[in-house]
């Protein structure tokens, strides 16, 4: 008994360290220390668990820890900074899968012990155990395949577009009803053979549901989905905590679930849309451009001509979007920024909260290119000074600078806070082609009198400007 108390006491310490860790991750000065503190919490939790009296054999535990640590350690070390988003999504999926497997292992344990012995040990009703096993499996499974699919979208292995087909919503509702129905029967059945078969069906449906859930969500909405999946991986762990009756899992998982939820809300607010709208609307799939009576044509300009304007500018703001990530242009952008500064201009980067495909995507890319973070300005701080900016350079961003969001009530993105690039004296828009943004909307910024399009690969365009400036 006393031994268990020591373990539980250590779990309390671990949970406390997680609380401090997450708290410190929320602020720039303390973030790195916060991560280490939560890491120490994790180490404590793992070490005291090894003392658990239930454990009969250590060889597989050691093997599992070594294999996992090697895979995780190597992946974390060798991955390029630019691939960070997909790696985080992948790890997130692994967390979900682990929770699913823990729930499954518990079911196997119940099968080998029989309900009577098991409920005697746990001191909880059989229905409760069944319910939380199913719940942990469900959330874990959806998190796993959802994250894997998100990983595929982020790494470009599958198309980033929203996939919508006829009857998709109906199919999803059917799937959900089936999952819940099986869950109810699974929870109430006393027969372990039935439970076992139902569980396997439940697992397959949950895995399919994870994919189906992410499928209709377009690239620009990915930041919301990624943070939601992050939240789910925490909830899965928390549910697994209920399965094995372990406090530290419940607390830590719940903390992650809550912080992920906050991030999700921040992302939704940055798009002025509700979570339900993001998840179920299939936004951006159909390219239904709104009735637009503006027939002005965008005016193109060459990189060389743009350079003359840039050279004369005393303040320049770069507005990066997903296109910068695709073109891997962050290093040349940084070079251009430095040259402009030497030339006497004030250079800033305006970061929209949902620019890119995951929360903070642009910050990671620009930090990788050594852009000083004093130059990274958040949306709310850059907009008031936008009218004083000589040149705003939009690099592969579209919806986050679409003025329709501010002044066209009929626009689907009306109300979404944007970076007001259109208020700058001159706007250069670097774009691969004449296609529409992810939302499929016409961007009025492109046809405004102070706007000039520079078509072509962003990296090549910026490089050309850099060469002009150097030459």
């Amino acid at each position, binding site marked *: 008994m006393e031994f268990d108390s020591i373990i539980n006491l250590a779990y309390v310490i671990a949970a406390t360290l997680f609380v401090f860790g*997450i*708290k410190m991750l*929320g602020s*720039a000065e303390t*973030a*790195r220390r916060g991560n280490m503190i939560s*890491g120490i*919490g*994790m180490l404590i939790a793992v070490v005291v*668990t*090894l003392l*658990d009296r239930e454990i*009969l*054999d250590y060889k*597989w535990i050691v093997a*599992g820890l070594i294999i*996992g640590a090697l*895979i*995780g*350690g190597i992946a*974390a070390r060798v991955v390029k900074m630019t691939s960070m988003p997909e790696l985080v999504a992948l790890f*997130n999926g692994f*967390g979900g899968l*682990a929770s699913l*497997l*823990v729930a499954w*292992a*518990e079911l*196997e*344990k119940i099968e*080998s012990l029989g309900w009577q012995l098991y409920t005697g040990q746990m001191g909880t009703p059989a229905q409760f155990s069944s319910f939380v096993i199913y719940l942990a499996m469900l959330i874990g499974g959806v998190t796993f395949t959802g994250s894997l699919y998100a990983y595929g979208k982020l790494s470009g292995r599958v198309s980033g577009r929203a996939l919508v087909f006829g009857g998709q919503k109906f199919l999803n509702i059917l799937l959900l009803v089936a999952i819940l129905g099986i869950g109810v029967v699974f929870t109430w059945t006393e027969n372990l053979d039935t439970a076992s078969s139902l569980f396997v069906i439940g697992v397959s449906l949950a895995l399919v549901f994870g994919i189906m859930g992410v499928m209709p969500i377009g690239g620009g909405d990915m930041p919301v989905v*990624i*943070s939601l999946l*992050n939240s789910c991986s*925490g909830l899965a762990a928390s549910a697994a905590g209920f399965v*094995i009756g*372990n*406090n*530290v*899992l*419940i607390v*830590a998982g719940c*903390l*992650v*679930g*809550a*912080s*992920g*939820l*906050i*991030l999700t809300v*921040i992302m939704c607010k940055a798009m002025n849309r509700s979570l339900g709208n993001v998840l179920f609307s299939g936004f951006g799939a159909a390219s239904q451009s709104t009735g637009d009576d503006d027939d002005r044509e965008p005016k193109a300009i060459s990189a060389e001509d743009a350079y003359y304007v840039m050279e004369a500018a005393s303040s320049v703001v770069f507005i990066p979007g997903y296109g910068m990530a695709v073109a891997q242009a962050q290093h040349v952008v940084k070079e251009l920024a430095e040259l402009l500064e030497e030339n006497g201009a004030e250079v800033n980067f305006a970061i929209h909260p949902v620019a890119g495909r*995951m*929360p903070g995507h642009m*910050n*990671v890319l620009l*930090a*990788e290119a050594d852009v000083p*973070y004093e130059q990274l300005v*958040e949306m709310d701080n850059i907009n008031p000074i936008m009218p004083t900016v000589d040149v705003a350079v939009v690099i592969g961003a579209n919806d986050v600078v679409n003025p329709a969001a501010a002044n066209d009530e009929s626009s689907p993105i009306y109300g979404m806070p944007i970076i007001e690039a259109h208020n700058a004296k001159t706007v250069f828009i670097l774009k691969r082609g004449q296609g529409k943004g992810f939302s499929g909307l016409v961007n009025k910024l492109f046809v405004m009198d102070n706007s000039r399009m520079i078509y072509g690969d962003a990296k090549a365009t910026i490089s050309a400007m850099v060469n002009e400036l150097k030459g």
Partner: protein
Amino acid sequence: MDLVLLFFIFVLAAFLGLELISKVPSQLHTPLMSGSNAISGITIVGAIVATGANGDGTAGMILGLLALIFATTNVVGGYLVTDRMLLMFKKKGK
């Protein structure tokens, strides 16, 4: 285990989590996600017990071992990646 107590803990942790972070600068969105994701690897605790407490070669042990490998990857990789990212931010701050 007292069920009510478990729920009590869960609810308190949820409110604590929601109050913990109010305004996160966008610079920290990715590290916060990645760092909290590492914490969600706490399932590792359940995986260790499942691997060690079920008899050798049983289905429970094999599932536990798989869970352990994935959870450990999540934990170790998650913390290291977050640290690498934050180090990169830090360097720039000076």
